[in-house]
């Protein structure tokens, strides 16, 4: 089991951290949530049928729980620091800033859809809503982005 789990960890870890980063924009929190998720998955590793989904769900909700514990119910990201890798135009940062200001569930749905490329049913199970609600959340989140970024269509 340990070798299997270690192999799973090696494969899944980078994506897990990136997912947690996208949801929190806090390196320490992201790492902590991910490690916590792996630790809790390990005892159930052989029982869980969809390990990747389990892990993603644990991460999505771990990030949300962290935000709530910090007293930020609609926790947006901390302000993005300017990163030298950002392209010369400001638009990517503006867009990410706008995403960071979305309510957590909207942000999570967008990340799972447009970064993780998950299907609505998968997103629904991870976020804990119905597929219809995933579509509704997506539509509202995109609408919100359009309003905040008038140049976006």
């Amino acid at each position, binding site marked *: 089991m340990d*070798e299997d*789990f*270690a192999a799973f960890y*090696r494969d899944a*870890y980078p994506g897990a*951290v*990136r*997912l*947690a*980063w*996208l949801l929190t924009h806090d*390196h320490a929190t*992201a*790492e*902590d949530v991910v*490690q*916590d*998720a792996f*630790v809790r998955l*390990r005892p*159930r590793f052989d029982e869980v049928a*969809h390990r990747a989904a*389990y892990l993603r*769900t*644990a991460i999505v*909700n*771990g990030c949300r729980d962290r935000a709530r*514990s910090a007293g930020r*119910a*609609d926790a947006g990201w901390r302000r993005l620091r300017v*990163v030298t*890798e950002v392209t010369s135009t400001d*638009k*990517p940062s503006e867009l*990410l800033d706008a*995403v960071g200001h979305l*309510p*957590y569930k909207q942000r999570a*749905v*967008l*990340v799972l859809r*447009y*970064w993780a490329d998950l*299907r609505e*049913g*998968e997103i629904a*199970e991870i976020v*804990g*809503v*119905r*597929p*219809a609600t995933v*579509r*509704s959340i997506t*539509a*509202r989140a*995109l609408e919100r*982005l359009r309003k905040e970024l008038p140049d*976006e*269509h």
Partner: protein
Amino acid sequence: MSTDLEQRLREALHEDAERARLLNPNGPPSFDVAPLVVEHRRRRGLRLVAVAAVIALIALVGALTMLEDEQSVDTVPVTPVPSTVVTGSDCSFGVSGDPVAMQPGPVDPAAPRFDTEPGQGVAHTTIGSQVVEVRVPGFLLHEPDGWRMEDIDLARGPAKVWLDGPASGQANKPFVQVRYFPGSAEPCSSFTVTVDGGSEAENRQTAIDFAERIVLPAGLEPGGAGAEGAGIGELELADTHWTFIETSVGAVESVMDFGATTVEWDTGCERLGASYELDLDDGSLILTNVANVSGTCGPPTTFGSTEHYPVIDAVLREGRVPIKLADGRLYLGDHPDGDYVVLGPSGPSEEEGADPLVLPEPGEQPADPAVAEEQVRAAFLRLGDTSIPAEERAASSERPGVWLDAAHAVTSTQYWDIIQGIREQVDEVVFVSPTRAAVRFQLVSEDPIVPRDHIGEAVLVDGRWRMAIATSCELFSLTGVSCDMSL
């Protein structure tokens, strides 16, 4: 096909993801036989993280439809509809305007001022030092001669004010009474509003003001004849959000969102959109240019089937859709005889930034709130106690047959062992009416994928408080199990 925004979003997120700091960029640490050692910070309580199934309830469908003046801008500002509804008799009635705490029955049951007729709706409330008692149909005065009567005009029509009602009742106070008897054969078409506790002038004014707020039973039904305060006369749909509560073929899981001129809804497997107009004269919602917005209806995916609700397609299609508003709910289609859907307003939602765990404001209380709360708590705890056979727990559900069928199905899912390890805890109960309550509860589990905090609903059925089937079905649905509402 992705829009430009979606494509840019995809690119931006992929680029941003590369900024994540990987603790072990060259590879994870090797694992020993011993469990992975990770330094944990102290955390408050259990860190529960949600799973792709098990239990995650947010929707407050029933409870949220009881939100009255406390509703957010997402809901429909329609007046007048009753903010308070008194049920429990043949003549349920409503009170429009600010919610009022109506207590069922006469002011003093031990010494009622008037005899209660069979099926008569009776309720009372206190406004400052004054006591207001409403009866539908109205109190029959068999010997009106000799009393001072005043003719008045209410908004609904002519009425009389009985100014010198004699000292009576337990408090032995005189009263003023507004008497509305339109001469209709409808059994619940009249009412009386009796007020005491103030001067005659004060009682008169209070009685008339309250009489204007009475919504008779016909006004509580969708499209009822002579509907008072119902209907879509002042309906504003722009920027409102709705949840499907029921349809002509049972419960569905869907949402409907109105913009200024466009509307989108979900059919279970895809999101459709259309332009809309309201024809207030005709009572129609006119839909044009219905088109797919997102999603695809097709064969089941790996993560459960893609539900499709043909009844939604049958009701929401190009052309005129009959629309009615009653008791805060939208009725679309041919209700009650044909294809129809019923929508309740979606309250403040987490995706909009609101705290989804905020309970609604209290409304009219049940007759004995302490007993009622005890029953609510017991029902929730019992339904969640998997150590008790499901057959014995089902009675705590609003729809025992529906619940039992779904509960059996859940035992076959991969999440059953997780569910068995959950302990339920009821934190708070808020009664929004004598027959409905919002309940905040926790699901406590050692498993990190169980979301902890929830809000559900309890309803009074056959004199006993039970968990609303909508609450149960929300929970079941996230294990992939659907409720069969036909049972």
